[in-house]
């Protein structure tokens, strides 16, 4: 197992609990970490990349204890933070070289080749002499992933990488990640965008309020949701009533009323038919429905 998290809890200095008793085994490949904002994803990420020390618990990354063997962990780690900006005065190539050099690539000619190759890979070779601050949002994100991958890390942690990207850049970015994951690299993709998980992750966990709500594959998550998604046609009055009681996730105008999809364990008293769930339904099911009576 690539990463093992046992009994991880974290408290902020003000006593607020950010993570509670997290237990996760993360294998190689692309691992999705799904959860709403404030669920504790970023805290977990920052602990995994050695930026924060957990209050309790044990984490092994590829066999290294994250508390006592940070240097070793850092050697095999790549990290792309959520809000990735640049020092204004670095050029694209310089920035990547700096990152490469700090990761232990001390031989300058080898480093140069690796940098150029990586720039080709992420499609930034043509703009290598441009100041990084002048890149587009998508290019910046690609430069971000390039610096995270330049030293061929065994573990890549990517925090909310597609936020703000247009669909084309998002697809391009996902493909870069998928490509990386195929090289025996564990990629932890933290996101609140369900589509990122569904399109690329084989394993995933879902966090809410600092706790793991689900651990498994996206398919397993769908399976657990089956029978809890409903489709029905309602009038305006009914819609108002249902919206008060249930998690309505889709509303389409239909004649004088609405064609809606609802996530609920049951829908007594309505003319509802069971509907096949997708990950979005599953996300709502786990967030809002599953543990409610």
């Amino acid at each position, binding site marked *: 197992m690539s990463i093992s998290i046992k009994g991880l809890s974290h408290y902020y200095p003000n006593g607020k609990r950010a993570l509670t008793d997290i237990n996760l085994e993360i294998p190689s490949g692309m691992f999705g970490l799904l959860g709403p904002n404030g669920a504790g994803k970023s805290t977990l990420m920052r602990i995994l990349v*050695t*930026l924060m020390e957990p209050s309790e618990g044990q984490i092994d990354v590829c066999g290294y204890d994250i508390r006592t063997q940070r240097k070793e962990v850092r*050697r095999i780690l790549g990290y*792309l933070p959520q809000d990735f900006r*640049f020092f204004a*005065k670095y050029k694209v190539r310089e920035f990547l070289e700096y990152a490469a050099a*700090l*990761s232990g690539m*001390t031989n300058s000619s080898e480093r140069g080749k690796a940098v150029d190759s990586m720039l080709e890979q992420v499609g930034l070779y043509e703009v290598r002499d441009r100041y990084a601050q002048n890149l587009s949002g998508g290019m910046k994100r690609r430069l971000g992933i390039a610096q*995270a991958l330049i030293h061929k890390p065994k573990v890549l942690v990517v925090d909310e990488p597609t936020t703000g990207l247009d669909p084309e850049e998002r697809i391009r970015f996902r493909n870069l990640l998928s490509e990386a994951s195929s090289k025996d690299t564990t990629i932890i993709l933290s996101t609140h965008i369900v589509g990122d998980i569904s399109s690329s992750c084989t394993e995933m966990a879902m966090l809410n309020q600092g706790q793991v709500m689900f651990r498994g594959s996206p398919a397993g998550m769908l399976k657990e949701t089956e029978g809890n998604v409903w489709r029905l046609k309602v009038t305006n009055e009914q819609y108002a009533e249902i919206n008060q009681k249930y998690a309505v996730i889709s509303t389409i105008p239909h004649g004088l009323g609405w064609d809606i999809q609802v996530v609920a364990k049951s829908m007594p008293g309505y003319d509802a038919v069971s509907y096949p769930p997708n990950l979005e339904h599953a996300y709502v099911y786990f967030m809002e429905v599953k543990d409610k009576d």
Partner: protein
Amino acid sequence: MGLGITNIIIVSRYETKLLVRGWFFKVFAFLALLASVILGSIYILSPNQQPQMVNRSVIPYMFMLVMNVGQAVVSVFLASEYLKRDKQLDTSEVFYTRPLSNAEYLIGKMWATLKVFFILDFVVALIALVMSLIKYGFDLDYLSYIWYFLLLSVPTLVFIVGLSTTLMLLLNNQAITMVILLAYIGVTLFYIDNVYYYLFDYIGFNLPMLKSVITGFSGLSRLINHRMCYLLLGIGLILTDVSLFHRLANSRYSLLPWRIAAVVFLLGGLFAGYRHVRLYKVDERYRADMVELDNRYVNVGGAVVDSCMLYISQEGDSLSIRADLKVRPKQEASQLVFTLNPGFNVGSISAAGHSMKYERLMHLIILSFDNTLGAGEPVNIIMEYGGEADDRICFLDISKDKMLENTKALSMLNVGKRYMFQDKDYTLLTPESYWYPRPGVAFSDRSPEWQLSYFTDFVVNVTPNPGLTPISQGLCTANADSTQYTFKPESSLPSVSLIIGDYTPKSITVDSTMYTVWELGSWDDQFEVFDSIRDTVPYIIRDRRRNMEYQADMEYPFKRFSFVEVPAQFTSYKRVWTSVYEQLQPEMALVHERGFDMNVFQFRNMKRSWSGRNNWNRRNNNMSEKEILVNILNNSVSFMMQSGNMSGSNRNGQWTMTQVDNPYYYRPLFYNFRYNVYSSDWPMANRMVESMTGTNQNLGNDWMRRMNGLSEDEKALILMGKYDFDRIMSDPEWEDLADNALALKTQDFFAPVSAAVGFESLVDSISAKTREREFENVSFDSILDWVQSYSGISLKEKIQAWNQPARLACYKIGNPVITTVTTDTAEIYQAEVAVENISDNPGYINVEFVFYEMENAGDEDKPKSMVLSINPHETRRIVTHWFNTPSYIRINTMLSSNLPHDVNLNNSDWSTYEGTELTAEGIYPVRGGVDNTLPGEIIIDNEDSELFSLSRPLRTGYLSKWIDKAKEKKNEFIYEGFSDWRTYSQWTLVTDQNLYGDYIRSAYLISPGDGSQYARWSVPLTVAGVYDVYYYASPNMYDNNNRNRRWNNNNNWNNNNNNGRRVTNDYNFEIEQFNMSDNVSMNMFRADEGWNLLGSFRFEADTVRVTLNNRSGIRIIVADAIRLVKRDNSR
């Protein structure tokens, strides 16, 4: 803790890119380079060279110092900037997750900051070097470039980068960090100065760092220790930052070694700081112990040394000396006390071939004799001693504050101070270093006995280190192979000095006096300028010497005179008890290396400057090169004829001008090394006789008085009226006034004789008496006996009261009267003036009748000067006759409270009458005193504490109040200086002879304002009637500019004040009685000097209040005096 140098280099390489690409650094670098070029253009390339540039280390010192101040400020910005950037950008986290350690990352970043400044330093140094090469060729001090980089730049930058990073990490706020650090830098630069011996001067801005051409740095080990303090603290802080850095370390214990190292370096820095202070403290303690010891022995075993033969052998750094002394005790004694430099170890002391018992206590040698020696009984003593002299004995009488005062060259470079030198290559020992045994103690603050010195017959034999040449006083003879030298002065001397170095003499003999320049290197290239007038040089020297002899009224007493080149740091201090500075020694003047800091010795510059001026004035005055060179040489020698120059300083927040002595003033060569008047009762005797017989040069007395508020004589008098004389002479705060106090005291001391026989006659008589005894010790008693036999007046009893505060008289001076009387043969002008002593103390005044130009005088007119005594409440009238009216009468009120102390009564203000009879010339008693008032006249002056009042000052801030309070506390002298350009925010008391006053001619000044500030005269009237009300104006004193302007403005000149209100050049008065008031304006542009009529008013027999407010368009409002004159028969 393993430190990855590679990682540090990587981080620093990329951080450097960020720094140099930032605008902040670019702008600073540009400014630094621009400043370097400007500095170089002004100081190096300019044809008008500053004399200090002869020391080539000045160039890197100056460049690095200027650079260091700038980079100390800018590095604060940069060092805090990268942490701020780290904090702001998540991007930093992608680096934090790399495997490099915190130390590698932080040190790499800080090294980047240091590196960019070091590179900039290098470029700046290169600019200086290239400019220097262009200007001076290869004659440069290359090593000093490295020294100043290491001493100034490195510790400063390491410290400030470490400190700013630490603060940034602790405070986590760049703005607060910046404010704190910039305040710190400002305080160290402008305020702390030499507090705790420059301990806080991390920039090195005030540290004495000049590197002498001859002897290098002064106190290099202390300098290094001081710089190490900041270097170690800086490293310690940087290491501390590793622990404070907000990133998890690579492993749990990886920070421990850094913490330990940080503590070690910080402690090391603190220790270096402690050591720095301690070294000074130990020295101070040592000096205090010496003084304490001196106090114990000051009255023990005094002696006169009749002859002193010194055998000196130089052995590496060390000296081995034998002194053969012929000594006479001054009184019967079984112990004799000598002072010898405490650095010297005494090997043996013997008398008549037998070892003597002696005690060596610090710098003292106490010799004990088995039998009591009778007074004057000669005894021969041989002392053998040696080692390395200790400079802590020098100037024990000078306060530590004075000694720590900076000696700045070019207003920024601290030269440092040394009083003696002794190493294998160079030795300079003046008498101040007590390099040979001198009788008595070095200094005592309990008894002035130590100040006495006596003439001695010296012979100095020197065996210097191979290749070196010794210099001392007297005729020098050397053995065949020039390894031993003997110096035999032709006469007794008060002291001898010893200088040994790689000297080359350049001599010329004129009229059997040998003039020599002793130089140590390339100074002679300056003198080569005169090669083309070699034949003329003797004539110039002869002419200058005659000039000096004429001014001194005595001949130069020695057979030789030398300028000896000595290190730039060599310095000495003004002493109260002598006018001699150590820079002057018998037969020689010690001049700083290559004429450092002395324009007169930069002959090449002067030639260039004269030639330039000559070209400019070619049409009017075309001088040949020879004439130019003659002028230069004349000027150069003449610098010794100037007693000093004026220097401005800001003391207690007030700008004052003081006279700074010229230590090379020639007079000691003519007088002090030749005559010695001694008195055990009165050690000031020698100084007093010198003061009496010397010409006193008062520089810029009038305008200095105007600037300072009081003349130095007046200040001295105020002190003399309050304090014991010893206190005035010993308080460092008043050292500038000591000369004045002494001269006034001397003037007063001899005043009875001056009054009886005339001052000039007295001076001539004393001079003649002392000149009979050249190079001999003359007792003051014999001088006083001579004066008594000559004048019939005994002064000895006056000595008893010498130390008591002076009893100051006050004089009221009448308006002079000139009466023209036509006799059968000529028209005679009878000039007279009356002076009243209105105090309870008797006193003397000196009255002079003076012509501006003697051409204005009548053919037989000669200036008259007389000293006269005036008893308490006595009035005397001085009557003189002239063929033409004297220009003015100058009255020097001697020991008095009068302000001004010297009054000049210009003939334009005298009353003139036609007369028929002459009163015989002479001094007459006057009944009833001096009355300058008219019948029915009432005058209220600003000095009247009951009837004159002022508005409260406008003060809002506590700080201002506090500053004012602090000023009041410190200032003995309530009268301030006056200058046209100054703003007076509150009523300020000044004195001037143009102002009104009985014996203090003073007034209050204030700058114009909104009218809320006022001065008020309350005039009590006992008789009702119509009164003319006058205001006393002194436009001559304060309103020169405006007065000139008024001729161009026939009409009332108006302008607007700050509030946009229309104001005039009027003074606005309110005249009030019984709640009835009249407002009166007076146009000051049309005011006359003296009384000006405000108007006529009818008053009842009650108090009248006249109020002057500060609303006016004129520059200054003056509140002086108000006069009410009752009109005849009015009711």
